[in-house]
């Protein structure tokens, strides 16, 4: 027994710095935020005191329910779009790219190196009202209002673009792991190209789909940079609200309440999703 304890100490010793860091600077801050969300401000002083003020939640949600649902809507649509356009690319890189594979992988991660804000600004330039892109989309009837910027479409497009690599990389990783012989076996057993895809390739790549959708959806829900640069008056997301409540309006209690609800809802959504899709993807594939 004593020997067993002695042997475990190095484990805790190795674990201690990281665990403490995460506890002090992640878990405890969440606790403080939870507390703050139940505080009341002493009027005009920026002082807060703890009063179990549950009405902070009620008020914040009543005021900002639109943005809340909009965030989930935009993030959901963007995630589906990422999956739909990311899958073919991941598939081609994994199975068909040959010697182009590394170059295509590079193209996937290249946007990462240009700074998130700068590439979003680039989209602002590309999609501006008088740009050729917008005019083209307008002529083929895809920009009914004559403009794309300052619409939900632009925000969703921005989110889709910015988080696409988060979708493609896990998809590629799981597709690449598929043994080509399995696909050959499927064809050998009279499956057509499309039924091979639907019955073999896609199910085998599900861990990548799960990981990719989570890696896309979670940051997308909380994002506010795209809505800030590409959106208009009616496209603000919950991230914009939280940051403006915190940073410009000093309404800390409402901001904390909204943050808490956001986190809780995301956890619930993720939990349900993982229940349906299996947990390996998020928790990391320990087995392989």
């Amino acid at each position, binding site marked *: 027994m004593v020997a067993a304890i002695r042997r475990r100490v190095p484990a805790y010793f190795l674990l201690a710095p990281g665990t403490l860091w995460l506890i002090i600077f*992640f878990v405890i801050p969440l606790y403080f935020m939870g507390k703050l969300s139940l505080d009341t401000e002493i009027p005009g002083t920026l002082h807060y005191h703890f009063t179990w003020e549950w009405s902070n939640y009620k008020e914040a949600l009543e005021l900002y329910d639109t943005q809340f649902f909009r965030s989930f809507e935009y993030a959901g649509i963007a995630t589906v779009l990422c999956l739909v356009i990311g899958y073919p*690319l991941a598939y081609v890189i994994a199975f068909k790219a040959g010697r182009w594979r590394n170059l295509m992988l590079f193209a996937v991660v290249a946007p990462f190196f240009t700074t998130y804000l700068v590439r979003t600004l680039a989209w602002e330039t590309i999609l501006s009202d008088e740009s050729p892109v917008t005019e083209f989309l307008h002529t083929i009837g895809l920009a009914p209002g004559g403009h794309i910027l300052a619409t939900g479409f632009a925000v969703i497009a921005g989110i889709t673009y910015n988080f696409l690599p988060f979708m493609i990389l896990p998809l590629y990783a799981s597709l690449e792991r598929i043994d080509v012989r399995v696909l050959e076996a499927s064809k050998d057993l009279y499956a057509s190209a499309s039924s091979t895809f639907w019955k073999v390739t896609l199910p085998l790549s599900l861990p990548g789909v799960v990981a990719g959708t989570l890696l896309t959806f979670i940051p997308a829900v909380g994002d506010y940079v795209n809505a800030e640069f590409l959106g208009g008056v009616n496209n603000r997301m919950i991230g914009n609200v939280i940051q403006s409540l915190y940073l410009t309006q000093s309404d800390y209690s409402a901001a904390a309440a909204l*943050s808490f609800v956001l986190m809780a809802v995301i956890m619930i959504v993720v939990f349900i999703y993982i229940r349906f899709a299996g947990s390996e993807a998020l928790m*990391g594939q320990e087995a392989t």
Partner: protein
Amino acid sequence: MSATAPTAAPGQETSPGRGSLSAETGPARAWRWLREHAVNIVAILVVIYLLVPIVVIFVFSFNNPAGRYNFTWVGFTLQHWSHPFSNSELTEAMLTSIKLALLATVVSTIIGTMMAIALVRHKFVGRRIANFLIVIPMATPEVVMGASLLSFFLILGTPALGFETLLIAHVMFCISFVVVVVRSRLIGFDRSLEEAAKDLGAGPFTTFRLITFPLILPGIFGAAMLAFALSIDDFVISNFNSGTTVTFPLYIFGAAQRGIPVEVYVVAMILFFATVLAMGFATWQQRRAERMTSIRPEQESDIVLPGIA
């Protein structure tokens, strides 16, 4: 293995049975070609989509706007490339970002690697909780992380918002990613190598220094690169906890209000090319290292076997 698979579409091998190709009409042939290559075409379009903004940034880094605003194309100039660091505010922000990213990378890589080793190598009470603690930050939106950390600093009143709080925050959100990357490398690690070292008289520390560490080094290096990229690109969490310290993304956000100087595009491109070079170099190094370290039995046939039987 799949890399060398022929790019031919699966439909091709069945076609000779159906009759000669020339029997097909022109449009039918075009349609068939399109169907066979559809996925490739889509993939190429997606690649173009991914690269378009980079091209735009590159092009606009040569723009010569008359006023302050680099929004519309005016004319070509090399002026901004010849003096990329003339904007002292921008340069300072960039230096702050690099310093911050380097420090955050070093700290998070060290403690993240320690954690990964503990998680993979040791069975202990609370392992599940520790795993959970690592996953949760990755499942939390940045805005919530930034906001909660700000609440924490505000209530505590110390340390003052600034470089220190940024460092704390950046290390915090990098740790999880480091752990995940290093852990995956450790999971694929052949434990018998360590047993062999111990068997040959190496103590636990010597074993780590001579065997484990050199072999997981590529994983640690990858984790460090990821941490650096995450840190230098972070805007949301930084925006909450920066106080009056300005990092590169924060500078851009501020400048976006008043018009982005062309130098921002130049510096962004410099950062881009530097990262590309660093990544290319790292991949080359890693591949060289892996070529030397991997045991590949399939090479057996390449080497002359001295007859021993």
